[in-house]
């Protein structure tokens, strides 16, 4: 590898020898193709005219009044496909095309990344196979139908815990067999180097826009930014442009599930460092290093690992990582829908829930930005079931 593969002490390339070839090839594309003017111009064209960038930074009148500070939403939910995942999927799919690859594979939990990859494959003329745990296939049925309609093949994964973690295992197994003509379009800032860097760079457009937009609206930096953390791509995407501004407090919100002393998916809050899926980062694991099953009402946060860059920011203290429970996220889902007329993804609802918790301690003119990573259409069944149980 030509670059440093570590982010602080985290990251690295823990893969089978066969895949080192593909990672070296990808790193070389990351260094030589991605920054090129032709590539950047073509990507910008897709981002603006196809995906719908830039996304608005919406001032929330009602929520601001209720919470007692100035609340903004970065509207990644308005992107084509309905989530931030398309920023990464279009970028990597275009890169794969420039690299001469014929086929894309992807893992998906919530289905948003699978849908984004299916869209990118369709528009760029690449074949798409998506691995998805059969538990997730059931709880995100709408997205499974969307992927199929977009021409992708959805391959059910019935090994292990049958969720996102195992979908990644299966994608890695496929990649190692088809390494020459296939690109593994990983959906978040995890995996071996250079994926965490590549996905971070492609998602950092969120923070770049938000920084300019908040200066336009308020003439100054925000005080707090809140984003949910599955693998951590939407969070790194919005944080990255503000990392060097110490006055901006950054909050990453993990899936607290049924509570940190019960089943959860809060890797940074409740795990310790180890190696999974090609990188060294925080993990939910037992004393021997066997990976534990995670739990979240939100499929996109139901993962026992997290991106290495977040592990670094946790240790340095630059970002504060906290968890909210399933119940708090479900309540926030309804709250945002009714207060602002925006139905958020259950993943993003975790960020909304945490913002509601910290807002009372902020001043009236404090500025708080929530990264609204996706819209909630895919989750209405899950929320309906919860409402029925409650009534």
């Amino acid at each position: 590898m030509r670059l440093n593969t570590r982010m602080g002490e985290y990251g690295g390339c823990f893969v089978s020898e066969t895949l080192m070839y593909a990672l070296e090839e990808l790193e070389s594309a990351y260094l030589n193709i991605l920054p090129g003017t032709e590539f950047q111009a073509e990507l910008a064209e897709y981002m603006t005219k196809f995906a719908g960038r830039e996304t608005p930074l919406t001032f929330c009148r009602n929520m601001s009044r209720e919470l007692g500070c100035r609340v903004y939403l970065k509207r990644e939910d308005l992107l084509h496909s309905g989530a931030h995942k398309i920023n990464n999927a279009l970028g990597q799919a275009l890169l794969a095309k420039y690299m001469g690859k014929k086929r894309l594979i992807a893992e998906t939990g919530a289905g948003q990344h699978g849908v984004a990859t299916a869209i990118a494959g369709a528009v760029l003329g690449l074949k798409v196979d998506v691995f998805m745990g059969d538990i997730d296939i059931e709880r995100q049925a709408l997205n499974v139908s969307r992927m199929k309609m977009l021409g992708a093949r959805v391959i059910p994964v019935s090994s292990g815990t049958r969720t996102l973690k195992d979908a990644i295992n299966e994608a890695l197994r496929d990649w190692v067999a088809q390494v020459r003509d296939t690109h593994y379009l990983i959906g978040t800032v995890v995996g071996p180097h250079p994926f965490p860097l590549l996905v971070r760079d492609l998602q950092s457009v969120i923070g770049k826009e938000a920084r300019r937009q908040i200066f336009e609206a308020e003439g100054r930096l925000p005080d707090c930014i809140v984003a949910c953390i599955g693998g951590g791509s939407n969070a790194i995407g919005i944080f990255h442009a503000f990392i060097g501004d110490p006055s901006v407090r950054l909050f990453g919100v993990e899936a607290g599930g049924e509570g940190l002393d019960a089943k959860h998916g809060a890797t940074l809050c409740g795990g310790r460092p180890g190696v999974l899926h090609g990188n060294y980062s925080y993990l939910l694991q037992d004393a021997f290093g066997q990976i534990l099953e995670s739990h979240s009402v939100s499929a996109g946060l139901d993962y026992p690992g997290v991106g290495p860059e977040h592990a670094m920011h946790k240790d340095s203290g630059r970002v504060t990582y906290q968890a909210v429970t399933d119940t708090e996220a479900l309540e926030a889902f309804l709250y945002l829908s009714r207060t602002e007329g925006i139905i958020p993804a259950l993943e993003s609802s975790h960020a909304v829930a945490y913002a509601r918790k910290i807002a009372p301690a902020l001043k009236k003119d404090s500025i708080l930005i929530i990264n609204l990573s996706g819209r909630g259409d895919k989750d209405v069944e899950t929320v309906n079931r919860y409402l029925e149980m409650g009534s």
Partner: protein
Amino acid sequence: MNRIEEVFQKRKTGLLMTFTVAGDPDYDTSLSIMRALLQGGADIIELGLPFSDPAADGPVIQQADQRAIESGMNTDVFFRLVSEFRKESDIPLVVLTYTNLILQREIAKFYQDAANAGIDAVVVADLPYEEAGEYIGAAEQAGISPVMMVSTTTSPERLSRILSVKSGFIYLVAALGVTGVRREVNPEALRYLEMIKQATSTPVAPGFGISDREQVQEWFRAGADAVIVGSALVRLIGENLDSRQEMNRKITACVRELKE
């Protein structure tokens, strides 16, 4: 010189290295399977220390890992199992596992515990050359042979760096993809073997996909020092869970046939 170096140095014919998962389907049966492998004439026994997320393995070995973990296998029990078997036999023992299990025990402690249990060599499926430095150092410190993996996608530059490590043997990944039975030997891998043999005197053992006598013989003719057979044996375990006697008889017969 440890047992693994010795067996390669003294070899007159190609060696058969069997792979099974420790604790599959349970501790006692696993011990009896190791005896059955010995009885069939295995030259080297490779044991998988099972990991919850074996991304380099196909479905046959994944299921074996799961059976083993469910029956209570973990790193402590693994070393106990190996120590117990070591009292009965001097056969070279190799462990195959994944990085996290070594890391969580602490690297130096893992290799020391392995040496104390009677293990001779350690292969790590997700630890390429770039990440392996500390692990190789700890292995050598404990008197264990590190084993480096090489694949047909390994470039000549990488190969020469990998060969600079003093490996017990080179594990040649004989088929692109995960472990599992393949019908035919990959000609590209045979050519790759020739290339490695020209570059080093370290023994080379192909594994992944090799499942029958014909394939084993083809590899020996091509110059392999040992051949690793895994999924074919693990499958026999999975297919005979309701009769341990039958299982062991079939395993012994299978090894005997592979050796002929």
